[in-house]
């Protein structure tokens, strides 16, 4: 069995409760950090670990912590981003739902490193039962003396609360999340200033993903160096992967980075192979925003090397022949999936979730959705296919936050790798009238019609 550091205790009966969590070594990292380490020692260990942000961007966590402004004398905050909303991603929910104290332990240790005395977990409003689970777990932690004034007699005070959103993907963007935590619409802020200087209520703030923070207790209990030995090169450690789509065993898996994509999809330990033994057609490896890969670029890179579950290997070949690890939202498609329909589905998501602040995104996502719908329902023209390319290229890079890019990339990749499917929709409108067209007759069987 591969090394597990996040899910190793998840199957222990009752691990959701404080007592069982504590009996199994829980909160030891708080004791160790507060009693034997300085805040900077903790930051140094996290830096040495090579841990990269698990929300999608992959920015080194320790480095992000080191940017926090400790000189201004303003109060500092740690905010956990539990707004998990990227289609294909459901790993943070799994952690919080089943082992909520792991995140709370990580929040305490990380807040200590940052010198934050008031921290929040911002959870999406739809995870309401998880919000309540966390509220109860936080109460348990207060009662046991892990939160509040002068924790373990160390002189360190921390108040931790959970805050809920109300249905807005954009609030996963860290400055929109901060706005939302201030009781406002989730409109991303222009950076700089970065949250490390001016975040929540204008105070220095670090925003980290649930999985990132949940790794901190292990790093403190072992060492940054030990963590950096897990995984492969700059893809240090383990990663939670949310696996969904046409596979035998959808679910959340913890992998040591560096295993092959082939092993992840086909071994019984993970996805268990393709559902109904149908052929693999496409893969979105890191959540809906990342480029979709066609079958021939999934197990091997364009250079013929094994494709690995690492930041580097999944992005090998750039956007031409690669993709991204992103948030680890791993969506597998078999031959019955329609890439046009799926791209329209994603475009509808982004059009719905654009905050409306920047014109290229507000207007562009709506255009993408409408044009894709036209093509998917057999009302499109060949010019529409070029129009899609034009629209997406005018969104990318022209917005305050990355939602614009996130909306553009899946469209660009679908056109790059699956253009023939778009052409088929234009050429044979009658055949795509039924939304399950490729379920009934997979594209492979009708592909030859395009060049007739």
């Amino acid at each position: 069995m591969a090394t597990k550091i996040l899910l190793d205790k998840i199957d222990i009966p009752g691990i959701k409760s404080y007592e069982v969590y504590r009996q199994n070594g829980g909160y030891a990292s708080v004791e160790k950090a507060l009693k034997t380490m300085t805040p900077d020692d903790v930051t140094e260990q996290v830096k040495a670990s090579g841990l990269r942000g698990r929300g999608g961007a992959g920015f080194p966590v320790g480095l992000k912590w080191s940017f926090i402004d400790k000189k201004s004398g303003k109060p500092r905050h740690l905010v956990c981003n539990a707004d998990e909303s990227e289609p294909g991603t459901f790993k943070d929910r799994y952690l919080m739902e089943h082992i909520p104290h792991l995140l709370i332990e990580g929040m305490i240790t990380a807040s200590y490193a940052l010198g934050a005395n008031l921290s929040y977990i911002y959870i999406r409003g739809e995870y309401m039962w998880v919000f309540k689970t966390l509220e109860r777990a936080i109460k348990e932690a207060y009662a046991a003396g892990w939160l509040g004034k002068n924790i373990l007699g160390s002189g360190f005070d921390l108040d931790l609360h959970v805050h809920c959103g109300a249905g807005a993907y954009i609030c996963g963007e860290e400055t929109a999340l901060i706005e939302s935590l201030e009781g406002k619409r989730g409109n991303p802020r222009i950076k700089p200033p970065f949250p490390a200087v001016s975040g929540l209520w204008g105070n220095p703030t670090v925003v980290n993903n649930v999985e990132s923070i949940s790794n901190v207790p292990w790093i403190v209990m072992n060492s940054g160096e030990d963590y950096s030995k897990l995984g492969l090169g700059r893809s240090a450690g383990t990663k939670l992967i949310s696996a969904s789509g046409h596979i035998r065993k959808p679910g959340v898996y913890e992998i040591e980075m560096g295993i092959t994509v082939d092993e992840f999809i086909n071994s019984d330990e993970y996805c268990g192979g393709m559902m109904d033994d149908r052929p693999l057609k496409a893969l979105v490896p890191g959540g809906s925003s990342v480029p979709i890969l066609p079958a021939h670029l999934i197990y091997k890179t364009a250079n013929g090397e094994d494709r690995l579950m690492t930041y580097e290997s999944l992005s090998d070949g750039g956007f031409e022949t690669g993709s991204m690890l992103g948030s680890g939202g791993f969506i597998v498609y078999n031959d019955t999936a329609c890439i046009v329909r799926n791209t329209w589905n994603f475009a509808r998501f982004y059009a719905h979730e654009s905050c409306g602040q920047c014109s290229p995104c507000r207007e562009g996502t709506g255009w993408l959705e409408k044009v894709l719908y036209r093509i998917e329902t057999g009302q499109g023209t060949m010019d529409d296919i070029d129009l899609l390319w034009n629209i997406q290229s005018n969104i990318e890079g022209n917005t305050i936050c990355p939602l614009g890019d996130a909306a553009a990339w899946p469209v660009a990749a679908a056109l790059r790798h699956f253009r023939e499917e778009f052409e088929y929709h234009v050429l044979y409108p009658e055949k795509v009238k039924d939304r399950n067209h490729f379920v009934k007759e997979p594209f492979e069987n009708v592909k030859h019609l395009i060049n007739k």
Partner: protein
Amino acid sequence: METKKYKQNIDITPALQERINELLSHYPADKKKSALLPVLHEVQDAHDNWLSAELMDKVAEILEITPIEVYEVVTFYTMYNQKPMGKYMFEFCLTSCCGIRGADDMMEYACEKLGIQPGGTTEDGMFSVVGVQCLGACGYAPMMQLGDFYKEHLTKEKIDQIIDDCKSGKVILHDK
């Protein structure tokens, strides 16, 4: 506005006020506005699952902010309802992973069974069906949200069962 047609009871019960005070205690005393999103959830849950303009004004008063600051938030976030919805609101996730595992079929089935269109509410005010965007349950598709909880791995039989359980009052909506 459509909401004008409906009159909503805007009383804040002592229990609700107590919960609001608890939420307010999570933020610095001069940052009451920060409690807006969680407070709106509680207020909506306690008032038949929707927020009239009068009720939003009441929330503004409690948090000592202007009514527009509440309206702009309520209209931005999808979980706040600006008109009465069914007591049991079936929110089907239609995004990709759910989409390729039969979400549209499930939503259509529920609509047919309840005799309404997506976005509609049954005449007795018991049920609404709406299509929503990714709920973060991609591995357990198709699924829907019902109150504070998720109903996952849906089948037509499961939908039948859920509807029956709602009718007989067996479904718990809120995790109190």
